[in-house]
Structure formats: structure tokens, C-alpha cells
């Protein structure tokens, strides 16, 4: 048993997640002070609406990356779910049928990925690059070059309207609930402990009785279902069901998750860090756009932040390892 050199509250604050939260707060404070127009109520509204799909998908992605796996097919599931939702609406089904049906289809897409990864023993990177192409192909193939746009206004308004007079969109409630669910799942259940154990060492987890295969399958099914839910939201928000919706979003999701302090090698990660990572990208983009910075520069800033966030802990880790023996705490 190692005795801690710092009191518990310092350990809680000096984490990788707190660093992201701190940078987020700093970015917000600086933007509010410096960027004209950032201090308005519309900022919160647009920020939440813009980040909602990425934030949703980032939740299960956090757990998947924490096991050391990855799901790159998520944006294609968004597209496929969008098309399914649109086609069912066009075929005369009510949206209360189309919504669960689309989410179910997403779960099936996730189950296909999960089965190939967990029971087929294939690397998730390869499997989900394949299904990224497969699901996108199905989505574009099903709807062709057309779009379904005649969704009832009560639904499309619901995706964008605010809670009363507040600047917070109604979807905030759904986001908060799902964030809470995933936070509890990862941090307060045996399932969540298993996820992190698998990430540290899949072998060791299996020997200590964790059902690695079933855990992975469940995670991919969750990822598919939540991505499909994001697809329905995306469709209603833009009032347009199209096969090419959300193309490339998987990279935004992975970027946000890594920025939030989840290790790409698995074994560590926390939901609050990821939420901060998603919001940080949203705040930076929003502030830079208001400043009239071109989109290429915005991409450079976010890309740099991402690279630094992945590289910095490695460098810090390297320094710590080198210093440890001198302190007499060699592992």
C-alpha cells in the first residue's frame, strides 16, 4: 500500500480532468472578456445545440476507449439512423415509432461491431473502419441524393427551442440525464470497474473473472444506440434526413474524448473530463468564429490542443518514472 504524499482534495484537483476543466473555464472567462458578442445568451444556446451530437456519442466512446478499443463507425450510424428515421416518417409511420426503430437499428449496428470485436477477436480499429464505410454506404444508398425534410414542426422545434425564457435548449435536460447515467455506469458500478480493468490489462481482467467479451459487446451496442439517438436529434435539428449527415463526426468525437483526458491506450478516463473536452472544443470554435478567425486557423488551434493533450501526459509520465527511483518509490 502506497501512502499518499498529498491530501485527498489536492489529489482530486490535480488530475488530468481538472486540467481540461480549468482550461475550459479559462477559455470561457477570456472569451467573455475579450470576444465581442460572446457574452450574450445566444452563445449558450448555440453551444449546446452544436455540441449535443458529439457530446452524446462521446459518452459511450469514453467507455470504449477506456477499454483500449475504438468505434470509428459512429458518424456513419448517425447517417444511417437519420435516413431510417426519415424513410419511416415518409412511409407514414409516426415519429414515436420511427424514433425507437432508428435507435434499435443503431443498437444492431453496434452489435455487429461488438460481435466481430469481442467474439471474432478482431481489432476494433479494423472492424469499425470497415463498418464506417458499410453503414455510410447503406445510408447514402437508401436515400440516394434526396433528403426527407417534411418533419412536423412540433418535433423540429422541440430539437432547437429553449426551456422557457432561459438560454438553455430543451435538449440540455436529455444531455444531463445521459451524462449522469454514463458517469454512474463508469464510476460507480462493477461494470465500470471492469471497463477500466480491461483497459489496464485485458488478460488480467479475464483471469480475475471479468467477462471481457460480454462487456465489449455491451459497450458497442450502447455506442450504436446512442449514435442512432444522436442521428435522430441531428435530423430534427437541421430538419433534414440525409445519407451524408454528420460525415466525419467520428474524428470530432475521438478528439473530444482524448482532450478530456481519456487514455487512448485504455485504463483511464472520466466522464466529467470528456464533457469538459467536448465543451472546450465548442467554446474555442465559437469564440474564434466570433473573432472572425477563418476555419482553417480554428482547425489548427483545436488540432494543436489535441496533440498537446495526448503528448503532454506522456512527457510528464516519462519525467515521473525517471524521478521515482530517486525518491525511493520504484515500482
Amino acid at each position: 500500500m502506497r501512502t499518499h504524499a498529498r491530501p485527498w482534495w489536492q489529489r482530486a484537483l490535480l488530475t488530468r480532468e481538472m486540467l481540461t476543466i480549468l482550461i475550459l473555464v479559462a477559455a470561457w472567462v477570456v472569451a467573455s472578456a475579450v470576444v465581442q458578442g460572446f457574452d450574450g445568451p445566444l452563445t449558450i444556446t448555440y453551444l449546446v445545440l452544436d455540441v449535443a451530437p458529439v457530446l452524446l456519442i462521446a459518452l459511450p466512446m469514453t467507455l470504449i476507449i477506456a477499454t483500449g478499443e475504438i468505434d470509428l463507425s459512429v458518424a456513419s450510424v448517425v447517417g444511417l439512423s437519420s435516413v431510417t428515421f426519415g424513410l419511416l416518417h415518409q412511409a407514414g409511420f409516426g415519429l414515436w415509432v420511427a424514433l425507437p426503430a432508428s435507435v434499435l437499428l443503431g443498437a444492431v449496428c453496434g452489435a455487429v461491431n461488438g460481435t466481430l470485436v469481442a467474439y471474432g477477436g478482431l481489432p476494433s480499429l479494423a472492424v469499425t473502419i470497415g463498418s464506417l464505410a458499410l453503414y455510410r454506404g447503406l445510408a447514402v444508398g437508401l436515400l440516394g441524393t434526396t433528403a426527407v425534410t417534411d418533419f412536423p414542426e412540433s418535433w423540429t422545434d422541440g430539437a432547437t427551442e429553449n426551456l422557457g425564457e432561459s438560454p438553455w435548449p430543451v435538449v440540455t435536460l436529455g444531455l444531463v440525464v445521459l451524462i449522469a447515467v454514463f458517469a454512474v455506469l463508469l464510476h460507480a458500478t462493477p461494470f465500470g470497474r471492469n471497463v477500466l480493468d480491461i483497459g489496464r490489462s485485458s488478460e488480467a481482467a479475464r483471469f480475475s473473472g471479468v467477462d471481457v467479451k460480454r462487456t465489449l459487446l455491451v459497450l458497442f451496442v450502447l455506442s450504436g444506440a446512442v449514435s442512432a439517438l444522436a442521428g435522430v436529434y441531428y435530423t430534427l435539428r437541421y430538419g433534414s434526413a440525409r445519407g451524408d449527415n454528420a460525415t466525419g463526426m467520428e474524428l470530432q468525437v475521438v478528439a473530444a474524448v482524448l482532450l478530456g483526458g481519456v487514455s487512448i491506450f485504455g485504463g483511464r478516463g472520466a466522464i466529467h473530463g470528456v464533457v469538459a473536452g467536448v465543451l472546450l472544443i465548442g467554446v474555442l470554435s465559437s469564440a474564434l468564429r466570433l473573432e472572425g478567425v477563418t476555419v482553417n486557423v480554428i482547425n489548427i488551434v483545436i488540432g494543436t490542443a489535441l496533440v498537446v493533450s495526448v503528448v503532454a501526459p506522456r512527457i510528464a509520465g516519462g519525467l515521473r518514472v525517471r524521478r521515482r527511483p530517486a525518491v525511493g518509490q520504484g515500482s
Partner: protein
Amino acid sequence: MRFTSVLAAGTAAVLALGLTACGGGGDEGGDGASGETEGATITMLPKNLGNPYFEASTAGAEEAAEELGATVDEVGPDTASPDSQVPFINTAAQQGVSALVISANDPTAIGDALDEARSAGTKVVTFDSDTEPQYRDLFVNQASAEGIADKQLELISDQIGGEGEIAILSASANATNQNAWIAIMEEKLASDYPDIELVETAYGDDDDQTSFDKTAALLQSHPDLKGIVSPTTVGIAAAARYVSTSEYKGKVAVTGLGTPNQMREYVDDGTVEAFALWNPTDLGYLATQAAAALVAGDITGEEGDTFEAGRLGEYTVGADGEVLLGEPFVFDKSNIDDFDF
């Protein structure tokens, strides 16, 4: 423990943030002053940045703004995907600009965002590519779809001697403009050009390399192809570049919509006989003049409204809030050197 004190400051900042967030937003920027365009702020939002066509239209917008004493800011996404313009429209609403001049990537996906901007007092003028009419005040149309389709068919028919196989190399499969033109061309081909057969419509996604590759594929899969019509500036340049260095040069006609600067060398070397377009600088100029007339309150976008558009003269708003720039213009060896865009 310097890091700890930074954290303490951060925590304080969180609390301060909570307070300011409740304080609500400032009420900056324009509720369009009537009869006055001096100092008006106009946001120019093309489909994507780095496209020479939109660089020319922005130059026209800047020219008009200078005459009017207004300022123009050009912003835009790096890809022309359907939802990529939404954050920029939102930003314009947050800034409370007087007018937004936009070429729409999607007729509906940006509708809600435009609605919000308009309810914040921003006038919306679409140019080049329209949204559904209810989402904007005016649409400045570069040429009627009919006029463009007719002109391209006339050009290709002249160049291939009125008979044979042709193919179309379009932009993305969802492009509003191109799809409308292609639909009319298909109709007219069937009714007025019985000896010309459209064998394939390929999509180059307005990407140079993709368009180049699709041109190669078209020529390989249709050995009897006599002409390619590309109703997009990126596509026609890529197609001409491919044909100019291939065995098909002089045998397969390339025409469509292009810009003089991109097409000059292919007209000079004989790959391309003639192509059409409007003047995008004039288009940006007219759209900005129209936006200013809306901001000043001179017009409301009703059918029959007339306004003075600087050097282009007087324009009248047509049905569905449309303003038509004029007829498509044909560029060939005789006149191409008079243009620089």
C-alpha cells in the same frame, strides 16, 4: 504550491462565471437603421472558402460595400457540407450584423438558423444557391435555371455537331443548382435534341482530384463519348485539364460553366471551344446592393419592389423574392482575355 493557487483562482473564476452567466447578455449591434446604409455591417458567407468563384463574388461585395459606406466580413466553412454553414449563421446572429449574404449549401438544413438570425433583426439575402423562399428576404439569381440549361445544351450541341453521346460531370449529388439545371437539360435533350444521348451523370463533389478521376472514368467507360458538360467551375477545369493532356484532346468537347482564369489555358490550347458563366463579381455586387436596400428599408423584398444597384442600374424584385442578374455569358477565344476572375 503555485499550481494549487492557480486552481484556487480557477475555482473563483467558476463562481464568477456563474454570476456573469446569470447577468444575461448585452444588447449589441444593429436593429437596422432606416434609410441609412452608412456603417452597416454585412457578413458574406459563401459555400466554402478558398473557392476562386466566391473570391470573385466577395470582391464584388467589397466593391459595393465601399460605395455604400458599409463593411463586409467574409466567413465560411472549409467544406461545402449541408450543416457546415450553421455555426457561421449563428455567429452572425450573435454579432447582430445588419445583413447576411449567403450562398446556401442546403435549401433546408440552414433554415432554422436563418430564421433565428432574421428574428434578431438581420436581413438575409441568398445569392448563387438559394434556400427555401421562406428562410430569406431575397434571392439574387445569377441566371434563370432555364437560361443556364439552354445555354449549355446550345454550346455542347454546336461543339459535337448536333449528335452523339455526352456525359455530365456535376458537383456533389445534393447540389441544389446543379440538380435543377440537370433536370431541365434532361427534359430539353429529350424534346429538342433527339440525336444527343446523355449516357451518364458523374459527381466530382466540387473537388479537383475527384472531378479529374471521374473524367478519366467517364472517358474509359464510354469510348464513343463526344462531349462532357460540367455545370460547375471546379469540374470543368478538372475535365479540361484531363482532356488537354490525353488522347481525347480535340476529339471530345468539354464545355459547361467555368471561370475565365481557370479556363484560359484550355481555350488557348484548343481543348475547350467555348463555355458559359455569369460574372460572379457582378453577382456579389448586386447581392450586396440588394442587402443594403433591405437594411435601409428602401425595399422589403415584395414582388415589384425596385432598387438602384449602383453601376448595374435598376433592378426589380420578381416572384418569390427573386432578383435576376441577367443572361448567361459565353466566353471563347475572342473575348476571354477581357476578363480577369
